[in-house]
């Protein structure tokens, strides 16, 4: 016998649930064929598992695909069963997406005892730190490239004074791609990194080279993550805002940055910005989050900055700037960087430019 799944939530798609159509004798070969196959389909035992990224706005897309799969297995769902499935999908998709853009819902189905299938849906939540942690075991280093950001080096060099007197904060330092070169140049660098394994790597590297880097394992958006007030000359966040989920999170970042910068200090960050005139819909916004490319409009960013003591002084495309300021032998920084920074991880348009791209934004604190 088939082993029953532990949680049987819904028994659906049985071909034997329709009542007899008519009491008369049938000899039409087509009707008889369908009748035999309908009966036969109840003897097909299907079991499987489908994992889907938890994107609430894709519920109808998923529903259509699942319906096709079950139909092809000979387990046609009734309209009522489809609506029930839709209802179940929505609640799991929303729950997963709320928890993390890296969540999946897992639909498992098994044969049911009435010839249909039984299914259950669960949510698998994965955090960004877990995702990055898995990079360590599955990807080749350096994970984020070996060169510091060219724009960062340009901005930091514009700050007058001796490097040792210039306090710099790297938010989302990763494995130290920017932190370490800045420290080698003599800047007083602090690094904030939320993935514990990455923070440890920076600490080890700093120790090995005898660099005075203070490394904090924390999420900048956490209320407990506090920085020294009015202290830094430069704060930067490279490839960080692309992980954010809402414009409110940008505002919190900017507000905290304002508190950490001294008057006249600079804030450099990059984010995906939709080109003017393109307004992403809800589905695009949700999909951008799971593709590590959260899309923001200019209005989102302006609203986030509203009333804060920050002025936007420069904005340039990351791809173009970095490409033209990086030695050809060091380009691209990673295998994924070009497509990602051009927005193609969200919009796969290999021969065109998508309506968003990663951009450098330089701000000055009043």
């Amino acid at each position: 016998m088939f082993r029953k799944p532990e949680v049987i939530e819904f028994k659906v798609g049985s071909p034997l649930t329709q009542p007899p159509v008519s009491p008369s004798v049938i000899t039409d070969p087509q009707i008889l064929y369908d009748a035999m196959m309908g009966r036969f389909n109840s003897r097909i035992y299907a079991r499987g598992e489908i994992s889907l990224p938890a994107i609430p706005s894709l519920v109808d897309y998923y529903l259509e695909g699942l319906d096709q799969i079950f139909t092809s297995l000979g387990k046609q769902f009734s309209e009522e069963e489809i609506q029930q499935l839709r209802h179940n999908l929505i609640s799991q998709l929303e729950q997963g997406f709320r928890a993390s853009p890296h969540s999946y819902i897992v639909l498992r189905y098994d044969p049911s005892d009435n010839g249909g299938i039984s299914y259950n849906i669960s949510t698998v939540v994965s955090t960004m730190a877990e995702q990055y942690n898995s990079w360590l075991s599955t990807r080749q280093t350096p994970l984020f490239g070996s060169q510091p950001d060219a724009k960062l080096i340009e901005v930091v060099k514009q700050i007058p004074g001796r490097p040792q007197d210039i306090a710099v904060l790297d938010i989302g330092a990763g494995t130290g791609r920017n932190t370490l070169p800045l420290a080698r140049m003599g800047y007083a660098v602090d690094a904030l990194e939320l993935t514990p394994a990455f923070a440890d790597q920076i600490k080890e590297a700093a120790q090995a080279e005898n660099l005075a880097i203070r490394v904090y394992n924390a999420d900048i958006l956490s209320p407990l993550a506090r920085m020294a007030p009015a202290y830094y000359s430069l704060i930067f966040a490279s490839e960080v805002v692309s992980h954010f989920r809402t414009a409110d999170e940008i505002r919190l970042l900017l507000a905290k940055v304002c508190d950490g910068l001294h008057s006249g200090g600079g804030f450099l960050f990059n984010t995906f910005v939709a080109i003017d005139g393109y307004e992403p819909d809800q589905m695009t916004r949700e999909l951008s989050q799971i593709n590590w490319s959260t899309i923001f409009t200019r209005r989102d960013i302006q609203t986030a900055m509203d009333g804060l003591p920050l002025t936007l002084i420069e904005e340039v495309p990351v791809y173009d700037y970095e490409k033209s300021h990086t030695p050809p032998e060091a380009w691209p920084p990673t295998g994924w960087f070009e497509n990602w920074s051009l927005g193609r991880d969200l919009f796969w348009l290999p021969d065109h430019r998508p309506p968003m791209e990663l951009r450098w934004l330089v701000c000055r604190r009043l």
Partner: protein
Amino acid sequence: MVCITDPVVLRKAAVSRHQYRFYFSGQFILPCVPSLIEDYLEQFQRVFTALGRQFSEADLEQLRQIVASCLVEGYSASTHANLILDYQVDANTGGIKYTARTEIGNVAGQYQGWIRDRPAPLFRDFPDAKALHVAAKLESELGANPLHILEIGPGTGRNTIPLARRGYHVDAVEITPEFAEQIQAAASQESLSINVQVGNFLDPLVRFRLRHYHLAYASEVVAHLHDLDELRLLFAKVADYLIPGGLFLFNTFLPIAEYLPEPVIKELSMVHCCMLFTKAEIYQALDGLPLQYVMDEPQLKYEQQHQKPEDWENLGWFGLWSSGRGLFDLPEGQEPPIELCWLILQRI
């Protein structure tokens, strides 16, 4: 082997054995002051000894480590953190078993307790003379009409409402929701130009209009701060909102020049809401900010000269607290080396 028959020795031995049939349990609740670890341990030991239980060196060391980590955790988390040590007889061994934890409170919680337990008015029911004087002076000097005031920590509106009655526009941020409601209710009743929001001024998302206010005002607020970083953040944010030439009036406990408080006193001052900053520390917190130190003066003396005598009769806890007796329990005639002072900073 010697068989004992001496009745005195036997009585003692039996009674000592009998102790293990005594059961007791209890709880200590102590503010998290890391520097007091040895004092606290002594106190625990005294109580446990009195209950007939001696801790071995090793047991004591373990207790020390557990308590020390709780004290540090609580102290760094909040100005209102307690260590809670529950103890009871361990039925198996006859010794003491205990659990230690920290309980983290906050300023709003403290005042909600006041609302519950104390009769109104919780604070003095007259405004600070200094606030009214500084506002009036700014109004005439800057020719500001109306004067825009940012009040941090208005409490029940003791100053907010009198200031607004003079025609000033007051924006305020108050950490205790019940207080904010009281002020807003009073403001709507008299149609006063007051906007109160609930929040902590130091919260990154609590923001006000940049370069907008003539006067920022914080009475009995700095005493609640946690550390020098918070003081600097307070200054930095105030500097954002003041117009050039605008003033920041606040009060804080200042030690007299000859007195340098040791760490344990600083920790205690935080826990007792009399947070002590030395003048050197205040200058350090101001370093590089567009704020300039204008003056300081003892608050009690200033207010006494300018308040109505009948108001001054009825100071309540404020008189003791502002003269430093919230921190130092000294006999009458001996003055603590700290006192609450008015300070004024000017936005450059």
